[in-house]
């Protein structure tokens, strides 16, 4: 059950390419691996904290005021993430601060709180949070790596902002001049994200093609039968 929760959040219902949630920070911050990893860690922390707390408190959260409660809890963990980043990764914070602050409005986190954490025990809520956070991180890092490579010709640039002086040596220069400078700008983000999502969609469609087709046929047949019975 737990493995299913994890893989469903990370791959099948991936917040980025399957549900198209959290696209604003995804597109804005994924111009380098360092920025993408910073946002992925912060989002993952908030998601994990919010899912765990909401699941723990699910029996005392009043149903009529559940959404304000979820937002309050998510905002608390977002503020904690902001404080930690500002205290211990200040240079990175100054670069992605705005997008860390708006994690509170990320539909991915509120969606998991409403659809899963508020109805499931804490263990499953944690696994779901880890899966969803991993899925979001995969999308962010994949897009970040491609954009940094095409836009700057490097990989792992500025990692010292995240991991300290040890990360200064991690930079790999693949191209001496950037092959596609547009990649680090917002239009490049839209183009590459579109291609990335299309590639994932094509890949998953190929893998699940025949089964999916059978399921659709079966569902269509059942629906047609029901229609015939209703309107003989």
């Amino acid at each position, binding site marked *: 059950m737990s493995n299913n929760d994890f893989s469903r959040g990370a791959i099948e219902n991936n917040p980025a390419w399957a549900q198209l949630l959290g696209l604003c920070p995804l597109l*804005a911050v994924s111009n380098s691996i360092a920025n993408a990893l910073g946002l992925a860690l912060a989002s993952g922390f908030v998601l994990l904290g919010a899912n765990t707390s909401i699941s723990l408190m699910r029996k005392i*959260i009043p149903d*009529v005021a559940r959404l304000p*409660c979820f937002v309050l809890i998510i905002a608390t963990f977002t503020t904690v993430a902001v*404080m930690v980043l500002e205290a*211990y990764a200040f240079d990175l914070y100054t670069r992605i601060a705005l997008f860390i602050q708006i994690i509170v409005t990320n539909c991915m986190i509120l969606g998991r709180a409403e659809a899963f954490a508020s109805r499931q025990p804490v263990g499953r809520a944690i696994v779901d949070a880890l899966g969803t956070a991993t899925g979001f991180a995969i999308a962010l890092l994949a897009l970040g790596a491609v954009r940094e490579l095409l836009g700057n010709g490097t990989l792992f640039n500025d990692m010292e902002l995240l991991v300290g002086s040890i990360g200064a040596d991690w930079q790999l220069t693949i191209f001496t001049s950037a092959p596609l400078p547009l990649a680090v700008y917002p239009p490049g983000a839209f183009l590459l994200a579109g291609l990335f999502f299309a590639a994932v969609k094509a890949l998953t469609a190929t893998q699940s093609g025949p089964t999916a087709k059978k399921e659709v046929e079966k569902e269509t047949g059942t629906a047609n039968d029901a229609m015939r019975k209703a309107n003989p």
Partner: protein
Amino acid sequence: MFKTLTALTLIGAACGLLLFAMNDITRGDIEKNRTQKARAIMAELLKQPLADKILWVEDISGSCQLGYFIKHAENGYSGPINFFALYQPNLPADEAPRGETTRQEQLSLRVTRHQETPGIGDFINHKRDSYLPDLDQQSIAQWQNLDNITGATITHRAIKKAALNIQTRIRYHTEKYPCVE
């Protein structure tokens, strides 16, 4: 009703407690980082090394010979904009620093906090764009001739207003603490 209120109070208290604890843990490091950032901006504006200890009175520091550093906030389009400025007032010949003749007022501005989208409206960030550094050491009148600009928070009106208000605050400050060489 009572049950709902109790639950909401408990949840609010738990969130408040967590924030209070985190604030206590991170406050020192955040303050240190902000001070370092402010000192870097001050050294850049002044173009010379700073003294180890800087005394602030009502968010203003400095002297009429050296110039005044001032922390200032102005309302922008959709939120506050925080400025850090170096204002060097008019100085007649007898008050000018040794070796200098009279000095016209000069204002240099840096924006330390805004809500602009990175990559779109962050021309106002002096680390990413030379827009503000190019306007360094202009008089208040020159700042009033700023071209129209607008972003999520940044507007030319806010910058013009900031320049005027900074001048007013410094005048009030120098009246209270007269210029002494």
